[in-house]
Structures are given as C-alpha cells and as structure tokens.
C-alpha cells in the first residue's frame, strides 16, 4: 500500500520533472541574432560606463591613470554602440521586436498608471515587453544618440564653438549620471528575474514565466498563424491580437 503510494508519487515526481525539463526548453523569446545584439550592447555599454567612471571619479582615476588610453577606449566603445543595433536590423525577429518595443497599447498606459500610482509592476498588463521595458528601450536609444552627439562635440573640439562645448559637456555629464541610475535599475530588475536572464542567454523562456510575467504575449509558435492570412500582419501581432480581443 505504502509501496504503491510511493510508486505513484515517484511517478508523479518523474512526470513533474519531465514537464519541468520541457518547460526548461520553453518557448523561443529571442533569436540568436537578438541575444547577440543584446550581449554586444551590454559589453560595449559596460566598457563605456567603466571607462567613464575611470575618467570621472578621482579615486578611480588615481588607480587607473593612463588617461589618454582610457579616453580612446571610451570614445570608440561609445561610438560603436549603434553598430550591433544596425547589424541587428538585418534580422526580421529583431525588427519585429523593435516594433513591439516602440509601440504603446492601451494596456501599456494602464501598466504605467499602476506602476506610477501603486509602485508595482502589474504583470497582467504586459505583452512580450511590458511598458517599463518599452520605455527603457526608447530611453536607451535616445540617450545613446544624445551621448554620441555631445561626445562628438567634445571629441573634436575645434569643429564647434566653445559655447556648444560647454553645453555639450553639461548634457553629457548629467545624462551620464541619469543613465547610471537607469542602468542600475535595469541590472537590478534583471538580477531579480533569472528566467528573463535565461531568455536573453539562451533565447528560451518557460511557459509558466510567460503566463506570469507576459500573459498578453502570444508567441508565434503557439498561435498557428503561419498561414497566408496570418503572415501579412506585421510587427506586434501578439499585443494587437490581444487588444482586439
């Protein structure tokens, strides 16, 4: 009797494990092109922020020294930041996700409303990306462009009048501090969500995670929409489909 029970529960445990291992494979959230873009951006941004810290904070400057080499590294890692994104545009999946990130739906506004008022992330209002992730993406694009613009003004001081250079330094310095705060937030949220990290590492996320964190996302592999009728819908079909109901 106990033996039978034990066997049953063991079988159940095995089943669970089987299910889990399938869940581990999960669903494709990102293609390899996308994980590559993210990783390249992370490295470039890491170098850029690291060198910036060495140029800016006296205690670090004193340890590192080598000012001219650090400046060169900072300049080139910064100017290279758009490259992975531009290369990524060759990938259809990347373009589609860029489209998803760029567009707000009514549920995104409600997500923001909850986040601002109740200080909490309402996962039930999230498609493939929640509104916070969408805003982060847009902020990152804008911030990198502004940093490159102001950075170039300082990089080639003779091309612009001093008046511009002071202004550019002002924008570059303060936006850098702001970016440091935002990037810290980005890393903090990532540190608390191993599944999201795994999604960017391997490309796959478990189904339960999608259900919990991004319930409005309808992965294409799930919806048999690879028909002629489905194909002419473009970018954020999941969000749109859900909005339409």
């Amino acid at each position, binding site marked *: 009797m106990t033996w039978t029970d034990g066997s049953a529960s063991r079988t159940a445990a095995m089943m669970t494990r089987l299910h889990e291992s399938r*869940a581990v494979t999960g669903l494709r959230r990102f293609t390899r092109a996308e994980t590559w873009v993210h990783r390249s951006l992370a490295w470039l941004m890491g170098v850029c922020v690291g060198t910036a810290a060495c140029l*800016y904070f*006296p205690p670090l*400057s*004193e340890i590192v*020294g*080598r*000012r*001219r080499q650090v400046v060169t590294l900072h300049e080139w890692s910064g100017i290279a930041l758009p490259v992975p994104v531009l290369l990524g545009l060759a990938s259809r999946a990347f373009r589609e996700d860029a489209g998803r990130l*760029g*567009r*707000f*739906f*009514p*549920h*995104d506004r*409600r997500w923001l409303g*909850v986040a601002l*008022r*109740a200080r909490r992330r*309402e996962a*039930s*209002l999230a498609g493939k990306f929640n509104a916070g992730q969408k*805003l982060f*993406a*847009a*902020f990152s*694009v*804008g*911030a990198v*462009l*502004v940093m490159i*613009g*102001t950075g170039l*003004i300082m990089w080639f*001081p*003779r091309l612009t*009048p*001093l008046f*511009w*250079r*002071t*202004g*550019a330094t*002002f924008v570059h*310095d303060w936006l850098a*501090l702001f970016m440091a705060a935002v990037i810290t937030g980005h890393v903090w949220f990532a540190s608390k969500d191993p599944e999201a990290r795994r999604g960017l590492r391997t490309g796959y996320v478990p*189904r*339960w995670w999608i*259900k919990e964190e991004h*319930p409005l996302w*309808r992965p294409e592999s*799930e*919806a048999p929409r690879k028909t002629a009728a489905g194909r002419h819908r473009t970018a954020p079909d999941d*969000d*749109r*489909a*859900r*909005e*339409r109901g």
Partner: protein
Amino acid sequence: MDDSAPHPVRTPVPLPLREPREPGESHTSHDASGPGDAGPPHESGEAAGKEDRGSPVGRRVVLGMLGLGAAGVAVGGDIQDKLDSVLASVSAKDPTGVTGLLPGGGGFRFYSVSNSIPHRAESDYRLTIGGLVDKPVSYRLSDLRALPQVRMVRDVQCVTGWRVPHTAFSGVRLSTLLDAAGVQSKGAAIRFTCFDGVYTESLTMEQARRPDMLVALTMNDKPVTDAHGGPVRLYAAPMYFYKSAKWLSGITVTKDVQPGYWEHYGYDVDGWVGKSNGRHDDPTS
C-alpha cells in the same frame, strides 16, 4: 501544466473583449482610468483612429530626448555656471564630499597619463636643472625649501572646463632657479620632465621668467600630495592647468620650444587661460 497553459488563455479570447480580460484588471481599471484616460478603459481615439497599431511612444521618447539634448547643449553653459556656484557653496559645507563628485561640484579632478601614481619622498626626490645653463644643479627637497618661498592664491582653470577657486600654492619662483643655474644666451625655452616617466611640458624663457611661475612645494598650505603631483609640481598660474606639470623632476633649458605631452594631441603650446585652446575663461592671473 505547461503544455495546457496557453490554451485556456487563448480560448476565451475571441468572445469577451478587452475589458473583463484579466482577473487582476478589475481592481486595476478603476484607479487606472483616473487622470490618465478620461472615461472607460476603452479609450476611443486610439483604437478607432490608428487601427490598433498602438501609438509610437518609442519614437516620441527618442525624438523628445534628442530635442531635450539639443536644448541642453544650447542652454547648458548658463545652467552649469549657476549650478557651479550652488554646488560650490554646498560642497564647502558637505562633510561627505559626495557633492564634489557631481558635475561642476567644485573639486579637482584627477588626471594622469601614466600607469600609476608615482611616489618620491624626502630621500629620493631630486630636481635637476640642466641643458643650456652654466651651472647644472640637482636640488633635494630640503634645498628647495631653503630658497625664498612665494605664496599665491589664484583660481585653477582646467582646459576641460572645471575651475577651482582660490587655491593657494607656494614654492620657489622658477626665475630664482633659472638665475641660480645661469641660463646661457642660446637658451630660449624650457622643457619640463616628470618622474612619472611620461609627462612633459614646455615654456618659453619669457613665460618662465614671469613672477607667477612657481616650482610649487605646497598646495593649500600643505605639502603637495602624491595625487596632486607631489612632492614638487610646476604651477603655471596664468595658464591652463595642463601646463602645471605634476611630479616635476627635470628642468632643461633648450634652444627651441619642444611641445609637451598634451600639446602633441592638439593642445596649445601657449596655454594662456582665456586666450588659447578656443576658450574664453576669465584669466586666472
């Protein structure tokens, strides 16, 4: 469990529209519909007008930031000026020193082109004076202290923009050392070398003989620290601070000006504050 997950989500979708969709939404919707979107959470214009493609918030954010960035470049100089004075007064009373780390926080920034902070002290520091002079000499720290000392309080202006007001330096006038060594008539310029092994600087003889050119032993009435270029640094008061070579170890009188370290990378050899490097800062001396 995981297999069946999407199905119950998907099936009810076609019928009940957005409104009752999520169970969590019922309590969300009433507070979310408050100030943001007036009226029920259907929001009309959006879905009707744009065929539910959503609104291009990403593009708006990016364009907005570009606009703000451009505006910041236009007015940044003025704002930073005002911030500087505020931050300077705050950081003067800030025991933690955190405000000193903010842009324009009124502190020195540490710039070094070498690998590490070099260290020389009483026992191993030497300042050699050579080149086109009659009496090449080598000074120890105690020798330098024994010479007549001059103290000056001026602003320090860096070519990258930061300025530290009222900084005291004291030491021996460069002209005192030059006179003692006896500059030959061919000697028209000076090359400075540093014991970090990398940095170099230069002055014309006329510039070097100005009374506000010091071989500095103290900064703010304390011995110059290692990080600030101690134990002995140059202090070229009327010029941008890159001319004030740290860790000074050699003064060589030459025939012509030999551009210094940063001057190989585009900085002006004659680094007058406000009259060089395309800048118009107030003079410091």
